[in-house]
């Protein structure tokens, strides 16, 4: 929720993270293995933020990095894995061996956690769902309450509203007021932006408010939900950003190989994050030619009109 709606909320990524992301706070990230807030996660690591509670759906790439870098105390979410590629190496090291530190886990299903964000976005205390019934998710997670529906008497599960301190959402386009437009799938982003106390929008392009008005149906998050607007081109790499650049499957594969070994992960982290001053320096290390190729590939399949 924003305290006031001034004309420009634009700031740098460093400023936005410093202002809204404190050690010990709870946080959620937009995107869904695609449109991920990778640049913002890097900046959180650079600023040495610790003890985060991450509340999220399926956020493996960002979480594996943040957990490996020792930023996370607790996870409330649904999925931490690499699908076709395999398990998440830093998550496994943390949970199985406490390296670099053991994170607390609270398991939800994707529908269950989605309903927590929907409840948060509606400012109601809970939502009903028909997921998770009869399973060990409920056995180990006491915050899922099974009740008998007061109308029909059938069993139904309740989940409590998610209310993270901060949401960071990466979108294709925003204006400086904070009106954020999204093309492609939208994940839980419109709900996360509303459920959070503060919302940071990172975007590929800042456009004029007149440009926003031309396609008002595509404004997923209106200005009044937004505290900060940051332009971060290629802010999702190596994830995809629909209409802007494709998924860098080979880079992700290399990361996954490196992350299997703690020392190799730390070298990767130092090279791409800690010894990169900012996202521009990261992009230079990845290679601008590589980023341009991913952009060319994506635009061949999905081109945003206008």
């Amino acid at each position, binding site marked *: 929720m924003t305290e006031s709606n001034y004309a420009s909320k634009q700031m740098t990524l460093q400023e936005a993270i410093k202002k809204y992301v404190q050690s010990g706070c709870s946080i959620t990230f937009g995107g869904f293995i695609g449109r991920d807030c990778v640049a913002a996660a890097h900046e959180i690591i650079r600023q040495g933020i610790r003890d985060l509670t991450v509340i999220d759906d399926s956020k493996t790439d960002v979480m594996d990095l943040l957990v490996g870098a020792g930023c996370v105390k607790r996870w409330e979410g*649904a999925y931490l894995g690499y699908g076709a590629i395999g398990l998440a190496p830093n998550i496994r090291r943390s949970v199985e061996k406490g390296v670099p530190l053991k994170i607390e886990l609270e398991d939800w299903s994707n529908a269950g956690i989605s*309903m927590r964000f929907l409840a948060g976005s509606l400012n109601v205390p809970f939502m009903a769902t028909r997921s998770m019934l009869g399973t060990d*998710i409920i056995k180990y997670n006491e915050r899922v309450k099974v009740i008998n529906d007061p109308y029909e008497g059938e069993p139904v599960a309740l989940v409590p509203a998610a209310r993270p301190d901060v949401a960071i959402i990466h979108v294709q386009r925003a204006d400086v007021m904070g009106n954020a437009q999204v093309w492609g799938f939208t994940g839980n982003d419109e709900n996360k932006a509303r459920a959070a106390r503060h919302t940071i929008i990172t975007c590929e392009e800042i456009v004029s408010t007149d440009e926003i008005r031309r396609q008002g149906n595509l404004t997923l998050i209106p200005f009044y939900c937004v505290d900060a607007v940051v332009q971060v081109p290629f802010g999702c790499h190596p994830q995809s950003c629909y209409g802007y650049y494709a998924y860098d499957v080979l880079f992700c*594969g290399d990361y996954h190989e490196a992350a299997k070994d703690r020392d190799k992960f730390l070298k990767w982290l130092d090279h791409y994050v800690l010894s990169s001053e900012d996202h521009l320096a990261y992009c230079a290390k990845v290679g601008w030619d590589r980023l341009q190729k991913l952009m060319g*590939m994506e635009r061949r399949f999905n081109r945003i009109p206008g």
Partner: protein
Amino acid sequence: MSETRYTKSELMAIMTAKEFRDWEVAFVGIGIPLVAGITAKRFHAPNLNIVYESGCIGPQKYRVDFNVGDSSAADGALCLTSEWRVFSDMQCGYYDVGVLGAAQIDKYGNLNTTAIFGEQDYYSPKVRLPGSGGGNDIGSNIGRVVVMVRLEPLRFVEKVDYLTTPGFLDGSPGARKKAGLLGSGPVAVVTDKALFRFDPQTHEMYLDTIYPGVAVEEVKSLVGWDLKVAAGLKTAPEPTAEELAAVRAADPANLIMGGAAARKSLAGLDEYIEITIKNSGK
């Protein structure tokens, strides 16, 4: 069964493809399930529509996806919407069939994708797995559920360490309905050696179809309970050349079926982009 002519993954994709029907809406995860879906569209289910949990409904596939939120999951979609909406549409019963993987499965089709406890427990497991993701939701809400899992030691167990996704729970009559679940539960378990189904009365998994060259005893030895075998046990046909070609066309750079090894054999990003565009039909 000749391992040189096709891989286990290819065989599983082809067997899974047969579980889809034309005009159905399928909620499919990325990886081999998606390859199965694309393969089904080339044969008996050209009008199958696929839904991804990221919010993509009915994409027109130009290229293979690596995960459900990859922008390729959205290519030419009929509807691009939200994660919470597609899970709610699932809860409304709009999705006919779902495909799931698992690390462990028990005799009532309950799945574990959360943790292998080993000597320890949920809090300090031997192997921490990814968690439910959308798996629990698929198992809870979708009409027909197909499970894909390799028939390997310790995967088919009497009781899963952690019940992530409901099959028939304790197998008792009406157990799913009593718990408040909507979908009718798993209909098939596709492995690399055999296909299993569930007894409509006892809800116990039984051996329905064996693959060419596999012995019933081998299957039974890999299952952690006294497996029943169908009276009319079927033998699966060998995959045809057309089926294998379809599976391979759905994954032209072999990154899904081939994994890390295939990734390393690529010369680099340029070759990957070239292969993708050449095979996209766009």
